[in-house]
């Protein structure tokens, strides 16, 4: 397989790197993430000296600059880290589970479920507070996942292709109902257009804490199913022959996806593209190896999110662009350059 020279799609691509290079790459990704975390504290619409930032974190006082660090930059950095990790892991899981390179959190209807629930909360119930409607977003994602799982299941097991279509259907119906509500209710439209952009600004940390234990559970599940998912990439029959319990693996993977993607959307709104693009890049670097793909995705996704957020703060200073809008502008050129340069690996 490694001797392929023609420009055809390689089904089982050789990993771009050996185990040692993979580990080095992982380390580099970790360093990049740490650098971006520091930058996220340093860069903003106002220039604040690093010493003040240090004091704000470790010797708090009532200084106004310290205030803006503690109340704005620190929370958004933490939110970016947490949401990014969740989106990366969810994206990697969804693509492995559905074996579809188009799959992302939007595909299983999760975003549409969250959006519809938030539209109802904002437009019908009049809730205007993020900590009020975040649970609507989470609940919407959860209900949609259960519906998709039921629609895509038979007594013999689930078919990923049918599940994807079921997700599209459920998402479409809810999306249409949501648009109808928004187009007839200008207040809801106004509130939803900013929520739908996806942002990590102005999310108090009390919004993050309750979601963290759920993320922890989901990450453990994700690593637990990565071995079976590797086998399932070869086809259901081969996986079953190797002793993989298909139905259980799929259900566990879907639980993990819902917790991760639902939680991330509840906190930040629908941030597209991160979960779609990062697993692709990881797969091109490490080859079809789920555990490495997860590890890379969990480090690269928050890096992309934080880099986008930092850029969004400085491009039209003193105003800001929400992070959900910037991610695609940073990520898409990289993705296109990569797919043109390398032999793209299918799923």
């Amino acid at each position, binding site marked *: 397989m490694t001797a392929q020279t023609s*420009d*055809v*799609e390689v089904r089982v691509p050789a990993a771009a790197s050996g185990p040692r290079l993979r580990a080095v790459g992982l380390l580099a990704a970790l360093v990049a993430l740490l650098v971006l975390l520091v930058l996220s504290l340093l860069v903003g619409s106002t220039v604040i000296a690093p010493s003040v930032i240090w004091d704000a974190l470790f010797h708090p006082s009532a200084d106004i600059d310290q205030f803006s660090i503690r109340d704005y930059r620190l929370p958004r950095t933490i939110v970016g880290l947490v949401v990014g990790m969740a989106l990366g892991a969810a994206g990697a899981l969804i693509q492995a589970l559905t074996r*579809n*390179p*188009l799959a992302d959190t939007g*595909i299983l209807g999760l975003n549409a479920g969250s959006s519809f629930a938030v539209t109802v909360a904002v437009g019908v119930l009049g809730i205007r507070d993020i900590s009020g409607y975040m649970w609507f977003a989470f609940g919407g994602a959860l209900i949609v996942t259960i519906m998709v799982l039921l*629609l*895509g*299941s*038979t*007594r*013999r097991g689930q078919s990923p*292709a*049918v599940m*994807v*279509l*079921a997700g*599209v*259907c*459920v*998402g*479409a*119906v809810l*999306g*249409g*109902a949501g*648009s*109808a509500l*928004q*187009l*007839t209710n*200008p207040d809801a*439209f*106004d509130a939803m*257009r*900013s929520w*739908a*952009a996806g942002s990590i600004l102005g999310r108090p940390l009390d919004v993050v804490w309750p979601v963290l234990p759920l993320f922890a559970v989901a990450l453990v599940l994700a690593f637990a199913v990565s071995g079976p998912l590797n086998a399932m990439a070869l086809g259901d029959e081969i996986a079953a022959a190797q002793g993989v319990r298909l139905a259980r693996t799929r259900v566990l993977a879907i639980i993990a996806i819902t917790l991760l993607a639902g939680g991330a959307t509840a906190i930040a709104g629908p941030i*597209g593209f991160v979960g*779609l*693009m990062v697993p*692709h890049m990881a797969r091109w670097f490490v080859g079809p190896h789920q555990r490495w793909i997860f590890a890379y995705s969990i480090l690269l996704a928050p890096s992309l999110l934080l880099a986008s957020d930092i850029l969004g703060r400085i491009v039209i200073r003193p105003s800001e*662009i*929400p992070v*959900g*809008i*910037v*991610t*695609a*502008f940073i*990520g*898409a*050129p990289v*993705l*296109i350059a990569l*797919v*043109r340069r390398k032999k*793209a690996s*299918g799923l």
Partner: protein
Amino acid sequence: MDFGRRVLVLRRWRIAVRLEWRSVIVCGALAVAVACMAVLALMTGSYQLSPGQVVSALVGGETGLVHDIVVEWRLPRVVAALVFGAALGVSGAVFQSMLRNPLADPGIIGFSQGSYTGALIVILVINGSYVQLIGGALLGGMATAIAVYVLAYRRGVQGFRLIIVGIGVSAMLDSLNTWLILKADLEQAIAAAAWGAGSLNGVSWDQVAIGGVCIAVLLLLAAMSSRPMRQMELGDDTAVSQGVRVSPARLGMVVVGVALTAVVTAASGPIAFISLVAPQIGRRLVRTAGITLAPTALVGALLCLAADYLAQHVAPTPLPVGIITVMLGGGYLGYLLFTEARRRL
């Protein structure tokens, strides 16, 4: 023992046409349903008519008010829904077959997002007229489709690379659209979003005639390419070995698929989802493995017409047809998936 499906063979002169009975029956039933739906749509409105009046107006037996209502006011909209629905369905079928992915539609190559971007810029930034809106939408859509195709071109276009480049470009345009809507004045933003949902309001005979001729030609081209389409569904290598020139065939399919969507978008805005869902429903009704064009076109027409009927007459306030197509198509495909799952038990 399964000896294949029963077929109907028509021989006349030196041509033989081989049709599967199931697909003949399904298409017949769909055509009847489309006709009934059309009569219902022509009857309904603030001035209610009987089926007899509608039919006699159509064959030229009525004069005066009834003739005006049916032929001049209601018929253009009904014909538009039928023709545009069929066009969207077939464009989706072409893309799904070409990319071998049930999620593919002309949105994949960025056309829908690009045309929405063009329209948003005309509405929100330069505050242009309706003609400029159409121009902006077409320009945006075409430019995006060409950009995606060129970016994906590297010694031929491979399906997978086209998908990835399409995702990237579409995602950027989606973001740009969100940003434009976010920064705009609320009233203008709602108007733009309503255009973006697709609507048949104010469709005239002129638009229907021009659009209809273009669509008829394109549908013919699509039907002619259905044989290479089916061979390419088996994989590029197999198709090449059977004498299909894969790259030119693929370019032709992209052009036909995008052009079909472009004609509809120019007249009515981007009506979402028919292109995605009609091929899926069509093949489930006929129960074939691949994509079939005739049932797809009929399903698209029926879906668009029924959705427009619901949007005008059943919804509490008149809505853009695109919102109803999404809900109706999504709901029906969901129901089909559900019954299919039960049948496999």
